[in-house]
């Protein structure tokens, strides 16, 4: 049985309450930190653990922490990114709902490491019921002396508050999150300055994902080295995967980052195989913005090796033949699903969520949505496929924040791997309204690079 570091106790009755959480070893990492460690020690353990940001980018957390500026007399802030909005991803909601004190515990230890005395959890507005769960748990933590002034007589003060968004995917981008937490529209900021220097209220700020902060708890308890023993290479520790789509057992799974994609999809411990005995057509392994993989590249890499549930293995082959672990939003498609429709749907999402600051993203996502709509509804032309390719290329890399890239990649990958299905929509406009294309030929479209 795989080791679980975050969700081990998630099934225990009443674990969302302080008493049960504490009885099951909760807040040990705070005791250890405040009694025996300096902030630098905590940062060092996190560096040793190899922990990488669990929100999607996979940036080493310890390194991110070490960038925080420490000008005299200027308060610093830790913000928890609980804006989980990447289609396919629902792990943070699960963690906060089931075991809210784990996040609070992680916030205390991480805030201590960063020298932050007032930290915030920014949670998407649609998770309002989870906000109430968190606030209840935070009140319990205050009542038991884990938050507030002079925690455990250590001299360390920490206030923790939760603040909601109000429906905007873009606020998962850290500078947009900061703008939103300042009570503004969620327009991402130009970098530099980076949040580590000028973030919330122009103060040094670190923004970390829910799962990242929760992972600090086992890292402190067991030590960074022990954490780094789990997993393969630079993919250390466990990862929460949100599994959805056409599988038998959708849900949130904590995996050690060493299992194969095949095991994850087909084993009864995890997804339990494709629903209704259908065949696998494609998989988006890391949330809607990562490249879609055709069935023959899901379980094996282009080089024929087993593909693993790690940052490196899922990216093996680059964008030509690989994808990304991203946020761990794992979406499985069976043979009946239409790739053109799915791409249109995702593109509509990005168009809807573009903040509108940068023209390539604001205009380009709308153009792509329109072109995909006409392809899907039988009014497309052959040139439309190249037009789409052209638009996505001109969005990628030309925007302030990664939303532009996130909108471009799914379109590029869909055309790259499923061009024949797009062509079929043009050639057979009537048939494409009634049935789906089925499994595609095992070919990779090689786009012109000019």
């Amino acid at each position, binding site marked *: 049985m795989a080791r679980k570091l975050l969700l081990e106790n998630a099934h225990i009755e009443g674990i969302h309450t302080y008493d049960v959480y504490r009885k099951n070893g909760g807040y040990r990492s705070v005791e250890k930190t405040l009694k025996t460690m300096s902030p630098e020690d905590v940062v060092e353990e996190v560096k040793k653990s190899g922990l990488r940001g669990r929100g999607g980018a996979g940036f080493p957390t310890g390194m991110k922490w070490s960038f925080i500026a420490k000008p005299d007399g200027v308060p610093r802030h830790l913000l928890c990114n609980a804006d989980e909005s*990447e289609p396919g991803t629902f792990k943070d909601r699960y963690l906060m709902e089931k075991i809210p004190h784990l996040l609070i515990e992680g916030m205390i230890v991480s805030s201590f490491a960063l020298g932050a005395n007032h930290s915030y959890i920014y949670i998407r507005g649609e998770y309002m019921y989870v906000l109430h769960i968190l606030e209840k748990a935070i009140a319990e933590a205050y009542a038991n002396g884990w938050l507030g002034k002079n925690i455990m007589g250590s001299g360390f003060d920490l206030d923790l508050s939760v603040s909601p968004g109000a429906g905007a995917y873009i606020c998962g981008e850290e500078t947009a999150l900061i703008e939103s937490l300042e009570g503004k529209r969620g327009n991402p900021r130009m970098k530099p300055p980076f949040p580590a220097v000028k973030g919330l209220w122009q103060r040094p700020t670190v923004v970390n994902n829910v799962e990242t902060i929760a992972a600090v708890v086992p890292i402190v308890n067991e030590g960074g080295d022990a954490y780094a023993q789990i997993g393969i290479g630079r993919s250390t520790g466990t990862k929460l995967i949100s599994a959805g789509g056409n599988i038998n057992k*959708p849900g949130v799974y904590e995996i050690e980052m060493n299992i194969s994609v095949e095991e994850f999809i087909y084993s009864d411990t995890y997804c339990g195989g494709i629903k209704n005995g259908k065949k696998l057509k494609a998989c988006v392994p890391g949330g809607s913005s990562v490249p879609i993989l055709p069935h023959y590249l899901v379980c094996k890499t282009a080089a024929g090796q087993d593909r693993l549930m790690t940052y490196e293995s899922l990216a093996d082959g680059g964008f030509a033949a690989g994808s990304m672990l991203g946020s761990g939003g794992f979406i499985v498609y069976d043979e009946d699903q239409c790739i053109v429709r799915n791409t249109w749907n995702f593109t509509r999402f990005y168009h809807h969520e573009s903040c509108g600051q940068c023209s390539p993203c604001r205009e380009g996502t709308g153009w792509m949505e329109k072109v995909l709509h006409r392809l899907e509804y039988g009014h497309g032309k052959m040139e439309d496929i190249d037009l789409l390719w052209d638009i996505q290329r001109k969005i990628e890399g030309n925007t302030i924040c990664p939303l532009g890239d996130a909108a471009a990649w799914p379109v590029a990958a869909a055309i790259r791997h499923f061009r024949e299905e797009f062509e079929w929509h043009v050639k057979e406009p009537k048939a494409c309204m009634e049935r789906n294309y089925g499994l595609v030929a095992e070919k990779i479209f090689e786009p012109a690079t000019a």
Partner: protein
Amino acid sequence: METPENQIAFKEETLKEVGRITAQFPEGMQKSALLRVLHLAQAEFGWLSVPVMDYVARLLHVNPVEVYEVATFYSMYDTQPVGKVKLEVCRTGPCMIEGAEHIVKYIEDKLGIKDGETTADGIFTLKTVECLGACGYAPMLQAGEKFHEHLTEAKVDELIEKYKANPVANYMGM
């Protein structure tokens, strides 16, 4: 119906809540409370009319335009009147492949309204929304704060009956 401007004021307990929220931010940074206070305003007044937004602006000592630009940016805020219960059906990828389009069509036919419209009795507004983070439990809709997952036609029937009998969707704990 827009509430006449001079009658717009939060209930006393809501004002207390506003005080608790603004106290979470350092002196001079009270604008940070804006998103949450707008949620409270929407819960109490039904939707964010200009007079309501102006009231929130006065409350937080910001310019009205700072409230308007936020209210129009975020998709959860209604700057037009809506029904007492908003049925917000997720339409994004994972929900779509599990039948969200069918659920939307079913609700449209059942209530006789299209996406974005409100029933004549003022009870229901149907709205399609983007990913709500329930991809593994699709299809789903949100009503007030509550997530209704693994939707079927029968579950939708049940929900609609429930809200017809008691058109209150808990939002902001209110």
